[in-house]
């Protein structure tokens, strides 16, 4: 089955899924202001306001991103005062399935590094191997997944059973030896009981 090409709709949907999964709430169209007619989607969490805007081509993005930034700034200004911290926490996510021409690479980098008014996150077809790569472009907005951060209570000893299994040592036996070590009991006795029960059974 042929893989359908990435579309702006799919990209927006992927972006929305990622943000909603990161405790962002989508702003209703009625409250989105200018965004309501742009096909863009706005999200807000405790820290920031993020607007996802998708362009069919790089050219559309290059010509339209300033308007997008202005719209975002206006939306934020409508709800936050200058002295509010979130007034400065706007993220403009500019997406396009199109790729950046070589002679536009400098412009793309410049947009990416422009931190005035709002932080710009650029997601283009150059980085998109698949639809899931949309999430990679949204990393600055997303928390670290729990599975990537430390596994609670997992330490070197907890990793040992799987490692020792590579040496044809059963994980049960490894766990028994480790448990004996932690309980300050004889590992030999516990392993013996384990083997003996196994052989008896």
């Amino acid at each position, binding site marked *: 089955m042929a893989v359908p090409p990435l579309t702006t709709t799919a990209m927006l949907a992927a972006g929305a899924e990622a943000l909603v999964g990161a405790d962002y709430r989508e702003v209703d169209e009625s409250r989105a202001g200018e965004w309501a007619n742009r096909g863009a989607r706005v999200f807000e969490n405790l820290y920031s306001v993020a607007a996802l805007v998708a362009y069919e081509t790089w050219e559309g993005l290059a010509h339209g991103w300033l308007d997008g930034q202005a719209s975002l700034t206006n939306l934020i200004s409508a709800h936050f005062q200058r002295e509010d911290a979130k007034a400065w926490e706007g993220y403009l996510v500019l997406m396009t399935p199109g790729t950046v021409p070589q002679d536009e690479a400098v412009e793309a980098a410049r947009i990416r590094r422009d931190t005035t008014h709002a932080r710009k996150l650029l997601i283009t077809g150059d980085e998109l191997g698949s639809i899931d790569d949309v999430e990679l472009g949204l990393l600055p907005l997303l928390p670290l997944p729990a599975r990537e951060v430390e596994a609670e209570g997992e330490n070197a*000893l907890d990793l040992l059973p799987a490692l020792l299994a590579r040496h044809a040592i059963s994980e049960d036996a490894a766990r028994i030896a480790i448990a004996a070590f932690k309980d300050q009991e004889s590992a*030999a006795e516990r392993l013996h009981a384990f083997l003996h029960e196994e052989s008896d059974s």
Partner: protein
Amino acid sequence: MRLVSLEVSGFRGFARREVIDLDADTVVVVGENGQGKTSIFDAILWAVAGQIPRLGSDKSVVSEFSESGEARVSLVGRTKQGTKCTMVRSSDGKSSRFSLQVDEGDLLRGPAATDELLKLLWPDALAATDPNQALFSAVERGVYLQQDLVRSFIDATDDKERFSTIGELVGTGRITELQRVLESSRLAWTKVTTTRENEGQALRRRVEQLEQGLATSAGPEPTVPPDPDGWGTWWTRAVSAGVALEPPASPDAGGAAGKLDAAIKELKLLEQLEVRRRNDASSLQRDLADMPARPADDIKALQAQVEAAQLGASQARSDLTSAEEQAAAIRRTQVELAETQEELRALAQIAIRHLDEHCPVCDQEYDRAGTKTRLESRLRDAPSDRALPELPDVAALAGAVQQREAEVAQATRLLNDASARGREWESRWAELTDRAERLGLPVSGRDAWPKELAARIRTHEERLTELNALRQEAERLLLVLVRSGERARRAEIEREVQSLRLELARSTRDVEQRQKTYDLLSKIIDALRDASSDVVDEQLKRLAPLLQRIYATADPHPAFRVARLLSRMHRGQGRVVASIGDPFAKVESLAPETLLSSSQMNALAVSIFLALNLGMSALPLEAVILDDPLQSLDDVNLLGLIDLLRSTRERRQLLISTHDRRFASLLQRKLRPVKEGQRTVVVDLQGWSRQGPAVQQWNVERDLAPVRIAA
């Protein structure tokens, strides 16, 4: 452990006492360069680990303006379990002291305090060769990113040390300890197994010994057990015959064989006694028969002969003595005469020589010629012997004496011989009489002795016959009992052998099972030798997505957007290297410093540091302490990392310092509290004086209505 408060005095930039509130999710320390930002973070490191290598010795931590001449830091923290820990470290530049109080418990000092701190914060360090150094390394590499050492993990540290650092962070020390404990357990197990093997060997030898014994002996022939009536009858006869033992009630009674054996011995003794008595009687009988008649020597006559001979010899000796005396007298007279004659002769010669007209004596005239003639004739003539008696024949008399003495000796000999014969006869007779008396024969009835002796000999022989018969019967009975006992014993041995075989089988099985356990334990121990590097490798694989995520968030390079830490073994040593990669060009470099700018390298270094900090399941301090490390990053990288830190504040306490007040404002905004229970504290160091900066602290206010557009 989460930090709660810090009190410093005399420490680096803080000469006077200052208390810093650290009980917040985020602590932003702002101040111009040289005002003490780093001093605050160094104080935390020093309180926990007791060293700041980049400053050198403890002498460097003491403020030049300290009034006491000492540096003192008191750090209060709280563990996940809610235990309050108060660490106090002080130093006068030469020696330092450390104390620890847990909750309201006893104040520990010195090594005891250090040990307890390790147990609380970093138990894995206890297995390290230098636990304090391990704790310091964990804090330095995983918690506190020092301003001057941002890139040291990548640049200055070599592959092996990186591996060691990550190993300590992930707790490979516990693996080493596990290996050591398992080896100890295996050794103890082996000792017991060896003991069991030896016991098994002893069992085997015992079984073989018993089986050999059973094999070599054919076993007793079945015999008819002794008849109890016959048994009793025999004992009655034995007792009658003189056996002085309490008869056993039956052959089955305990000790019956022993008593029978003793009875046999007694019968033997009785037999020997009868034999002796019989022999005594026979001997006496024989000797009586051989006794000769009394000798008929006339001792008196012989004595008279001796006396006569002695008398004759005495007389002969007397005669001889007289003759010898007489002969001696005659000889003396003869000698005198000869001497006189000689004197006269001598006088004559003198006179002849000296004769002159007158006598030399009286001076008268004399007949000189006639005198001379007479004197000369005196010289010529032999003396005239007076008529002496004839000498007696002494030799003949001596011969007579010898003869008489020989006669005496002969008579005496005859007398002695006769006397000896008489005494001998008497002696023999006395002995026989004595023997007869001992045998109970009447002394007066000597003539009846032979007859009596013959009767007695017959009696003894009859008794001997009886005793012999009893003994032989007893020996037969004894053999029956012994053989019965041997059969029972053999059966017992066979049962014992069977039991021992079972026990041996159990012992063998036990040893085999123990050996299997040993093999499994050895396998685990051998596998653990590679486990440390496997764990590091595994942890790095687990860290990889996190590192990649952090690095991607920082987004330092448009092409090299993949960062990894790779572990490998080289010559038995674990090594870790940093790599960056271009996923689209499929290019990877193990020398990022050759491809990245200084700022990009800083971003990579910070990413690695944060990955290690966030990726470890346990750290001595649950904090990220960043001493102005973000200043060298580009704005986009900076914002990216701060956004990342924002998402970790629920897992790590953030302590960040900056000299840039605008950046400080950015931090306050980015890391402001947005939820109930969150707290962000700003520590503002203002001005510099010899006593230290002026410190102002305040809380960043929480946004009470953070969500407004989507609300």
